[in-house]
């Protein structure tokens, strides 16, 4: 199955994840004749807004510069007098953003108000709230109720000339899909309906009964299936935003494995009729950990909904869905859940409080924040992120440096004494680095006798020249230590600045 986003060819992130998810989605029959669905108030076009976004991400290997810019065009929808809802993917890493009237008669500078990369949702606002431009003439749409499988919905596009174009579709199934960041799957509708791909739009609003139902993130033209972020996710997002402080979607802090293997089931003393997922990791400090769950426990039910051996539960109207929907969907940080689990053959029950997961040691993504770096004597240091490793391109898992890949996959082995993993990402050859050309992609352990817990601590350690005038930088591998003439290093750095390097360091914005 091939997914194509309607406009952005670069959105490879949408591929793959959705595929497995679709296979387990349930398809309802019989299929009613799509065109025969009576049209009611939906004849009236919703408040559609064109969004023009210039996206420019940073160069992973040379973090002081950005990659070449790309222009993206998408569609948003007005949800309050000043708020436009769209997908995060459209505006991540944006450097310029504007609203455009459907007929292109007016443009308004816009900013990102709230963005959630995991659920792929963003709220945009006019840059100057005193000047709403054409937005002032539109009436915001309300968020509607969840639909049922078999219901119809309308997908909205804008023709080049500004005419709204509507496509009726049928909700064929509900599943969880990661629509943007890999590894974060959220409730989505699968809507069947033939769409016009020539009419360039992206992040298409979907309505039902004159109210907003969801946002379309991907369309597969072979199967005529669209992936639409479900109203429950949008509602949770908007409610979280509404209290003035956006927390984000919560999680339980566990990793789980199915228990289909019958020998494994016997070993875990799971009865034939019992379901549940094996907890293979418990994240310290999060809900499950605080509630006393341990690796090896089998999670059998959440809030009274039994989990089956593959990790699914029965949703009252959508049918069979992954258990994560019980956590990452309609719940907020601070909410409590009742967990039922099996330990040593005994069923137990606890209450856990949900929290929002902190960034892992190796952050998954660095959107809208420039990657921190530090240059000293031509040595370039960065904080490891999976975005850096992914920048090795196709087959990055085998092409990226093995030791750094190992950090990504075994983060807890590197957590002690570290907030971030600082590594030497490259050496700009110069007189101070003679003989160091073979040293690359090594983790920095210390500098001038200081332990390195993040890039800031490295910058601090290298800030002043040591007594003997030589910086000492500890490495994870041969030659174990690099020595840098402090005076020469400063001279080299000044020369680098003169030769066009814009800056010698950039520290992370928050923290």
């Amino acid at each position, binding site marked *: 199955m091939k997914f194509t986003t309607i406009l952005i060819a670069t959105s490879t992130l949408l591929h793959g994840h959705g595929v497995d998810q679709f296979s387990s989605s349930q398809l309802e029959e019989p299929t009613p004749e799509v065109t025969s669905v009576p049209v009611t108030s939906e004849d009236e076009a919703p408040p559609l807004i064109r969004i023009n976004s210039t996206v420019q991400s940073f160069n992973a290997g040379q973090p002081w510069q950005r990659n070449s810019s790309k222009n993206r065009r998408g569609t948003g929808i007005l949800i309050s007098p000043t708020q436009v809802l769209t997908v995060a993917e459209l505006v991540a890493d944006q450097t310029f953003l504007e609203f455009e009237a459907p007929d292109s008669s007016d443009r308004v500078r816009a900013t990102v108000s709230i963005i959630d990369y995991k659920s792929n949702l963003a709220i945009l606002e006019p840059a100057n709230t005193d000047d709403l431009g054409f937005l002032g003439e539109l009436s915001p749409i309300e968020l509607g109720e969840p639909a049922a499988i078999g219901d119809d919905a309308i997908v909205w596009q804008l023709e080049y000339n500004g005419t709204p174009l509507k496509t009726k579709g049928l909700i064929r199934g509900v599943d969880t899909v990661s629509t943007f960041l890999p590894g974060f799957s959220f409730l989505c509708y699968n809507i069947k309906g033939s769409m016009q791909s020539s009419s360039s739009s992206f992040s298409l609003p979907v309505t039902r009964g004159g109210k907003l139902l969801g946002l379309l993130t991907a369309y597969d033209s072979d199967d005529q299936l669209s992936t639409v972020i479900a109203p429950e996710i949008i509602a949770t997002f908007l409610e979280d935003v509404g209290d003035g402080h956006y927390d984000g979607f919560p999680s339980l802090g566990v*990793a789980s*494995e199915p228990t*289909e*293997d*019958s*020998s*494994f089931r*016997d*070993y875990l003393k799971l009865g034939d009729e019992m379901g549940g997922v*094996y907890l*293979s*990791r418990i994240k310290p400090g999060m809900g499950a950990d605080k509630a006393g769950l341990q690796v090896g426990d089998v999670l059998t039910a959440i809030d009274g909904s039994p989990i089956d051996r593959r990790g699914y539960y029965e949703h009252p109207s959508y049918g069979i869905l992954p258990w994560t929907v019980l956590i990452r969907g309609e719940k907020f940080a601070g909410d409590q859940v009742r967990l039922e689990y099996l330990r040593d053959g005994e069923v137990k029950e606890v209450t856990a409080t949900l929290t929002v997961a902190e960034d892992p040691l190796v952050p998954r993504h660095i959107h809208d924040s420039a990657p921190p770096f530090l240059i000293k004597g031509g040595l370039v240091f960065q904080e490891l992120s999976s975005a850096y490793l992914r920048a090795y391109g196709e087959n990055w*898992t*085998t092409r990226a440096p*093995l*030791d750094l*890949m*190992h950090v990504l*996959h*075994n983060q807890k082995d590197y957590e002690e004494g570290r907030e971030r993993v600082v590594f030497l990402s490259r050496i700009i050859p110069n007189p*101070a*680095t*003679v*003989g*160091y050309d073979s040293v690359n992609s090594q983790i920095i352990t210390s500098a001038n006798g200081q332990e390195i817990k993040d890039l800031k601590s490295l910058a601090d350690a290298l800030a002043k020249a040591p007594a*003997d005038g*030589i910086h*000492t930088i500890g490495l994870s591998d*041969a*030659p*174990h*230590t*690099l*020595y*840098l*003439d402090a005076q*020469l290093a400063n001279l080299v750095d000044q020369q680098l600045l003169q030769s066009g390097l814009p800056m010698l360091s950039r520290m992370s914005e928050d923290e």
Partner: protein
Amino acid sequence: MRLIPAFFFFASLIFCSAETTTANSTPPPAAATEANIFDSVLRIEVATQVPDYRTPWAPGGFSGGRGTGFLIGPNQILTNAHVVANARRVLVTMRNSSRKLPAQVKYVAHDCDLALLALDDPSPLEGLLQLPIGEMPALDSEVRAIGYPVGGDRLSVTRGIVSRIDFQAYSHSRVDSHLIIQVDAAINPGNSGGPAIQDDKVIGVAFQGLRQADNTGYIIPTPVIRRFLKDVEDGRYDQYVDLGLSHFSLFNPAMRKALGLPDDDKGVLVTSVLPTGACDGIIEVNDVLLSIDGKSIDSAGNIEVDGELINLNEVVERKFAGDKIALEYLRGDERKEAEVTLVTVPATRIYGVRYGERPRYVFYAGLVLQPLNLNVMSAHRIDNLNVRKLYADYLDEGIFQERPDLVTITRIEMDELTSELNEFKKTVINTINGTPVRDLQHAYDLLYAEDAPEFTVIECEGVSRPLVIPSAKAKQANERLMQINNIQSTHYLGK
């Protein structure tokens, strides 16, 4: 750069040998020496049985090839290891003869690509010249390569000059580097094992070519040949010895200053010492190596021998296990001297291609366990990150001391007990029933223990749940799967 062993496989042999017997012109008397030399160059045909590391219990693939060898002593025929690797039958044919003489591989050295053969009945060799082994040829001097390469059935002679003398990779094992002579004589498949001659003496054994360059042939020079012949004098071949340390060039002025070294371009920094290796317990990481056997080491790790700069590892090239090497080094401010005794570290062979060995394995309830090595890595195309990391760290981190074998689940045969175990495929076993696994024998003992617990629990590197097999059901699963897959034994643990 891709080196190709100049070995000629039957698959590409399309020439007919019927005409060879018709040629019988007698060489003129002046060329008598030439004829003698030519007569001592022998054609070698090999039938091989190549072990299949994908299916370690199977006999492997039957194939064959052709190469060259030459007489160097009484019933001593020198050729390349890659000509006779995995051989199950070796036949030698003399010049102007059709008789195929059965031969045996007496010694084979895969780390320097040399082998010594002997005829079952040496009488046909009587009267043949035993080619004398010469010295290193001079750069730009002329050499002849003699052998039985592709392009015809009879003896071939090509001529060229010595283009380069270098320390380079030997492609047969993929991990070894030794002295090499590059010539511009054509060395083609089938030439392998043939002599390179200068002044009626052997100056090397032709052994590999370069695929993307013309007229680039490589020859194993006589110091390497002599070392091999000396090694086998005691009746067996030991492998090359190694200093067992890695070093880092000391070019950087700040680094030199910090280490208290003068600006004299001398010395290299020791960055790792191989556990159980020659320098283990004597040299430490961060020592600065100053001289080896009295020869001063420069900051790039080179020493001067006969006016040429060569890598310091060359010093141990001619040495044997038990030989001693004098080292001078700096620890902190202190100048120290030590004598180290060279040893072989068999664990280093995990990174080299293995030949002529029956693959070791254990079969248990559908799981196929094999010790990790280069053959297993490439046969099963293992790219699992955690396995690659263990493999990379095996030697340097001294993992081999605790775990001589990295026991890997290479295959899982589908059955009732194994249908949900896909995530364990191509992972390394850490423990069985809580006991850390040392090697394949240990894994076998644990899995097939008389008093196995109700559930056999296997923990694998990088997999977040244990693999569980109900011990009582393993026997039945074995019977079923071994019959289907025609597996004769639950294990082969080596000799």
